[in-house]
């Protein structure tokens, strides 16, 4: 059996002698062809983990391997097989997109130039414009291109769709799926449940430097609560809705309310079917909130 694409054993980081561990004894195994979502609030240790894996910072405890090679000793070799997008990425503002991609390709030769041309076309990137003159979305597209253009076996992505419009986000999810099909392992840090649901096979949640839980994405979605904003033509049936098991209802106006519901949604729709509904919209579920809610509950 081949080695996991990414593995960590007791990996920890303490930035100063008396400081708390920013990452505490992380144990992790991610296989080839797997997309792993890494979630947690700001300062939880997500970026520290990513920076350790890429050997930008040195571990205080433990070890980690990428494609069976040690992240410290074999750091340079590993990077022949890794693509990386930093959160809040910085590019070279004076270069055009083309110059930047040429520079990056000179540092890490690409296998198929045609693949890069295809990516440029798919993401509709104007590579002739100076990076400083590009919108944040277009800069993010260039960041995606530089990470994927050499078709790496492992992709480490920190908020990869930040700033992208929905069309380009879809294009990105498609790209990720294609890489997964080719056996690439993708480690992605994100805040967005819809994105994680679309992309990931498994999710790990980190808080205060500790990996609290790992679950498959289906398990997470099953336990996540849905939030609906509903406006009725007449008075809202708030009392009726409050009777649904697991529901929380917040009334904004006599005809407008928000229902927060975990689990089976059919009782909600049965009630709605018997009333005149003017509009209904589902809010994006924040996976971190779900986890936080869950784990706060479990700690009590």
């Amino acid at each position, binding site marked *: 059996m081949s080695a996991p694409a990414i593995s960590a054993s007791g990996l920890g980081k303490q930035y100063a002698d008396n400081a708390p561990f920013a990452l505490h004894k992380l144990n992790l195994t991610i296989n080839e062809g797997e997309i792993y979502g890494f979630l947690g609030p700001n300062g939880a240790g997500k970026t520290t983990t990513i920076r350790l894996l890429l*050997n930008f910072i040195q571990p205080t405890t433990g070890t980690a391997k990428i494609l069976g090679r040690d992240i410290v000793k074999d750091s340079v070799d590993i990077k022949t097989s890794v693509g990386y997008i*930093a959160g809040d990425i910085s*590019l070279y503002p004076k270069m055009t997109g083309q110059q930047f991609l040429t520079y990056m390709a000179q540092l890490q030769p690409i296998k198929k130039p045609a693949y890069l041309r295809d990516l440029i076309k798919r993401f509709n990137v104007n590579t002739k414009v100076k990076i400083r003159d590009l919108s944040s979305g277009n800069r993010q597209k260039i960041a995606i291109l530089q990470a994927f253009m050499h078709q790496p076996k492992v992709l480490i992505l920190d908020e990869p769709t930040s700033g992208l419009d929905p069309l380009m986000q879809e294009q990105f999810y498609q790209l990720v799926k294609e890489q997964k099909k080719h056996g690439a392992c993708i480690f992605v840090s994100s805040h967005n449940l819809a994105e994680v649901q679309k992309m990931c096979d498994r999710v790990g949640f980190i808080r205060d430097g500790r990996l609290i839980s790992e679950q498959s994405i289906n398990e997470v979605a099953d336990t996540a609560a849905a939030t609906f904003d509903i406006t009725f033509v007449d008075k809202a049936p708030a009392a009726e809705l409050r009777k649904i098991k697991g529901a929380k209802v917040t009334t904004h106006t006599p005809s407008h309310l928000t229902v927060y519901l975990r689990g089976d949604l059919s009782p909600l729709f049965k009630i709605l079917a018997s009333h005149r509904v003017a509009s209904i919209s589902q809010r994006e579920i924040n996976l971190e909130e779900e986890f936080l809610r869950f784990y706060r509950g479990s700690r009590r």
Partner: protein
Amino acid sequence: MRPLIKWTLWERRWSTLWWIIGVVAFISINMVFYPTIRDQASEFEKTFSQLSEGTKALLSDTGEFFSPVGYLSSQIFYLMMPMLLGILAIGAGASLIGKEEREGTIELILSRPVPRGRLLASKAIAGVLILLTVGIIGTMATAIWGALVDIDVGFGYIVLAGLASVLMALCFGAIAFAITTLGRGARAASIGGAVFIALGGYILVSLAGSVDWLKWPAKAFPFDYYHPAEILTGTYNWANMLFIVGVVVVCTIISWLAFRRRDISAS
């Protein structure tokens, strides 16, 4: 290594051009007045003779200002060239790695199969090339002006004095570079530290000629080993340059030891 050097030079191409223009302009301004000053040397001598020894030492390493060697040394090679090139070198030394780290672009490079030592060496080579370009053009401008205004100093000596001033500046740049590679806290101190050694050394060494007790502390500063007037007359003991070369070598070793394993700061 080549792409790292090439793109670093590309990024700094316009600032390098402006440095060349600035240095050549400074040299030209100083050199163009030589015939006038030479013709009125006796009157200037009277004025300068009233200056204290300490003040004279700050302006020249010979105390002589109006002979060809005295003029070239006091106006170009003793202070102006090493200081101008020193500013360039300190700025580059503090920013070649420091700017990439501050702006987060270093992560783009280190996320690729680039060993840290190679990155460091490439940046250092790019810095040396920039400094050499500006220094050589400045030296050539001095030599050409020297011929135009009839300064009777050999071309070879002018070139050697120019290279010595480049080496002095490189020494200050290497100090800034080494301090920067120590990490985020040190990065802020890199320019201050290097300027202290450059400017403080210049003042200390200049005053050491008239203040006896400063002679020993002055020996710790590179300026003490730099005597352009002696280079211009062919009497310089080149073993002195070993101290300056030694500082560059030590700074290079410190940079490598510090940078190869340290944490890269988050942007």
